[in-house]
């Protein structure tokens, strides 16, 4: 009798414990993007300060880093120098693009005036691009291969190493797609 109860309890508790242990280190808020490995959604974005809209087609041919950010986002301040340094180091080999999320253009102008930018930034009217990419908060960064597929997505502020690793993978996707 006791052995049966014990066996039943173990059979019930062990799988639950296994699920708990496997998921202990996992961020419950993190949801993998269904867009990974799929074609990046097309967009048309107006440049900050005016000018010709940017479309996805214009990014084809080299790896691209799409960074959704806002001036009201504290982690974006933290991430800004990392992105700028990387964009300057990599030069024209990788196209960095800033997409402003739920913000006023005047705030963005003021921010860029004080902080500088090594790459172009664009306003996302009505949050269309953000919705198409499944953005739910900033900063979020998407890595797009030269043939227009989403290689990876990173939620939160990127550090230099995380960014370098992902850019390397995106560039490797370039070789693979050739």
């Amino acid at each position, binding site marked *: 009798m006791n052995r049966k109860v014990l066996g*039943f309890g173990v059979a019930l508790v062990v799988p639950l414990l296994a699920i708990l242990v496997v998921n202990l280190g996992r961020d419950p808020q993190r*949801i*993998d*993007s*269904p*867009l990974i490995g799929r*074609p990046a*959604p*097309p*967009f*048309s974005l*107006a*440049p*900050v*300060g*005016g*000018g*010709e*809209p*940017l*479309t996805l*087609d*214009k*990014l084809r*041919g080299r790896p691209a880093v799409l960074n959704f950010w806002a001036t009201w986002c504290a982690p974006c301040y933290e991430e800004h120098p990392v992105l700028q340094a990387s964009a300057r180091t990599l030069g*024209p080999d990788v*196209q960095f693009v800033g997409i402003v999320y*739920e913000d006023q253009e005047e705030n963005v*102008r003021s921010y*860029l*005036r004080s902080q*500088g*930018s090594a*790459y*172009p*930034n664009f306003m996302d*009217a*009505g*949050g*269309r*691009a*953000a*919705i*198409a*990419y*499944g953005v*739910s*908060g900033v900063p979020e960064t998407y890595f797009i291969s030269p043939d227009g597929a989403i290689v990876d997505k990173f939620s939160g502020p990127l550090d230099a190493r995380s960014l370098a690793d992902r850019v390397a993978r995106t560039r490797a996707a370039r070789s693979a797609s050739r």
Partner: protein
Amino acid sequence: MRARLGFALLVGLTPALALPAAQATSAPDELPGIEDAAERLGPPGARPLSGAELEAETKRVSALLRCPVCQGLSVADSPATLAVNMRNRVRELLAAGYAEQQVLTYFEGAYGEFVRLDPPVRGVNWTLWLAPLGALLLGSLVVFWMMRAPKAPGDVALPAERPAAAADPLPDDAELAQYVLRVREQVYGWPGGVRPAKTGS
């Protein structure tokens, strides 16, 4: 003035310098409509809606979507900017003639199944529906099993070698002990209130 000029150069010229010049052909009036939906969903599967019908459908379909930045609120109920933008997107898609299922698929394609407040019954989602039934069935079986196998009277009998005094303890109070023995004699028929020793094997 210098700062303004520098900024204009920064935000205005950088894209032109950084992006391939040969591909610059889009006009501002091409700012996005439903082109990404068309690419993902194909042609619209319903008739375009407008007016009060469009608003009612927008509200109904938005209520099926989870606001990604809220705690358990639907896109229809949330005042968050993202939810407002998503509602507007729903409205645009319905106005373009996309069916409810296509609209849900559009958002699911970007945010995952998480965005649906009423996940479809498929794949691993079956466990959500079957697990409570399974638990109920398992619990019923356990209860049934426990009720079906009550202890037989013989199972609780004391071992023959067990001393009677240990099996039928008496209170320390001598007077009370006498009463207990009398009760045992009358109720159980034990001579003198003492359990008779087992006979035979």
